């Protein structure tokens, strides 16, 4: 029998999916797993860990989540790493690298006792990656989980980070295109959404209406929405331009909804540029939401007619998954994990320019039957591929795989 939380997931994903999780967990008796990242709130990584770690515990696995602490200088350099890994030519000084290494050293004393005895340590992204070399007497397997689009990293940044991540026992990337030349097994695990979380659970129509009213969104005018951090790679300026192009032909209002994460010092500058571009246009709503505004984002996604994610680089794009789960076709940038989710003419459209995004918005708003059909397909696609239960199953499978070495077939049950 399943516990009540797992039973709730069984209702959404299917009972056999939960049974698979139990079968995997039973083959990992007594395994202790520690996840480490750099922020407790804000951004997709924290949201995933917030759900995955308690689920692992419910399955009987001794899982925990630790967060490294850093100062502004540390987050400045890790943001540069992030941008560099996504292909931007960033400048990282010796002082930056010293701040990065010093922060990792500062965290070792607190984290080492737990990490050196863990059976499996999963380090998320570059921020805490240097911990491995600082904890030489480690017992378990260490895995570097990279959530970033590293398909074409800036050479200087990768040259510095590669020797840091190469000694790991394995790494995980969201897409095959992100895999790098590394001397260890590389696993592919796309992230997921939690269908029961405040951001994705079903809402009453009155809740959606209340959020519309709160932000002055006209229910009589079609609404396009982009939910994302204010980040150049999300191309919010391009989204505004696309909506202005589309608006020449169809009535449309745009909502840009985002916030910052504690590890992103650049978002203020991007937000300033977005506000300047939007000007005093009454049909463009630029919203700055706190990191825990999950209910509001849920309601906005349900209120939207079309959801955009016009990124120029994207690790995965969980906001795409969220929108598709709510039955919305997505117009997404033809990059990164969006390619895995937005299947042209089926679950949405992939675009590379504001003009392309405008063209597809016009199409969907003038073909409402297509909008509905694609929305249904989008929800089904997420159900089959991108729910939390699939994500957890793949993490557990990876652990089982590490235990069984390179065996091609592993039989459970």
């Amino acid at each position, binding site marked *: 029998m399943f516990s009540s939380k797992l039973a709730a997931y069984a209702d959404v994903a299917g009972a056999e*999916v939960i049974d698979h999780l139990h079968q995997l967990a039973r083959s990992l008796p007594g395994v202790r797993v520690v996840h480490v990242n750099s922020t407790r709130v804000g951004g997709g990584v924290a949201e995933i860990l917030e759900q995955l770690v308690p689920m692992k515990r419910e399955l009987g696995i001794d899982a925990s989540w630790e967060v490294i602490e850093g100062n502004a200088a540390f987050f400045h350099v890790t943001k540069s790493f992030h941008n560099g890994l996504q292909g931007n030519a960033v400048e990282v000084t010796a002082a930056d690298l010293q701040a990065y290494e010093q922060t990792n050293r500062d965290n070792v004393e607190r984290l080492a006792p737990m990490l050196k005895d863990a059976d499996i340590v999963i380090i998320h992204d570059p921020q805490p990656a240097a911990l491995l070399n600082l904890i030489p007497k480690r017992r378990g397997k260490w895995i570097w989980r990279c959530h970033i689009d590293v398909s074409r990293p800036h050479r200087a940044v990768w040259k510095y980070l590669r020797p840091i991540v190469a000694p790991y026992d394995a790494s995980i990337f969201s897409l095959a*295109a992100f895999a790098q030349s590394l001397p260890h097994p590389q696993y592919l695990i796309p992230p997921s959404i939690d269908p029961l979380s405040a951001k994705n659970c079903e809402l009453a129509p009155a809740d959606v209406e209340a959020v519309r009213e709160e932000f002055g969104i006209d229910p009589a005018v079609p609404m396009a929405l982009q939910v994302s951090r204010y980040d150049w790679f999300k191309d919010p300026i391009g989204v505004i331009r696309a909506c202005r192009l589309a608006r020449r032909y169809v009535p449309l209002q745009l909502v840009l909804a985002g916030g910052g994460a504690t590890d992103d010092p650049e978002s203020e500058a991007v937000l300033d540029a977005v506000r300047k571009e939007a000007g005093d246009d009454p049909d463009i709503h630029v919203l700055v939401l706190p990191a825990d505004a999950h209910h509001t984002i849920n309601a906005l996604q349900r209120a939207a007619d079309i959801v955009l994610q016009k990124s120029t680089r994207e690790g995965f794009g969980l906001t795409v998954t969220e929108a598709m789960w709510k039955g919305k076709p997505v117009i997404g940038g033809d990059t990164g994990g969006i390619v895995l989710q937005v299947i042209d003419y089926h679950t949405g459209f992939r675009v590379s320019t504001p003009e392309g995004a405008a063209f597809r918005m016009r199409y969907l708003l003038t073909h409402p039957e297509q909008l509905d059909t694609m929305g249904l397909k989008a929800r089904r696609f997420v159900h089959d591929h991108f729910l939390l239960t699939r994500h957890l199953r793949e993490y557990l499978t990876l652990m089982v795989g590490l235990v069984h070495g*390179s065996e091609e077939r592993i*039989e459970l049950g």
Partner: protein
Amino acid sequence: MLDPLQYDDPEALRQALLDVIEERLSETDLVPWAPREHEFIFLRAQTVVFDTGLRAHSLSELAGLIPRLATGSVYYHFVEARRRLPGGGDDFSLWIKNTRNNCEALTDQLTALDYYYASLTGLRARLAAIFADWINRYPVEAA
């Protein structure tokens, strides 16, 4: 062109594919390029087999289970089996041949089902339809 259906053994298919690539590469002085994010990528997989707890003792029981199968089970029994079973084929056809007589018409339909053109959800629906149709026509044999 390589037709994957013409190869019972994936290793033979892989070798044939490598031959085609090597042959093309040997014909040119410059290594052809691929646009960003459109590269051809070779992957390796470890298969983890779960016990679904589902058991069928007759064709009609199997037909009743098919619509409820997880897509992973559809993949395992109908697609992955071709690599696993000596001589190829799928698990359903093998089970029918080993336990039933006079069901060639059904196994022929399963063999003719081209799984390359359907999603796993679509494949499950087509399998379910084939079984349901056969059981409607031959209820005695299905018992």
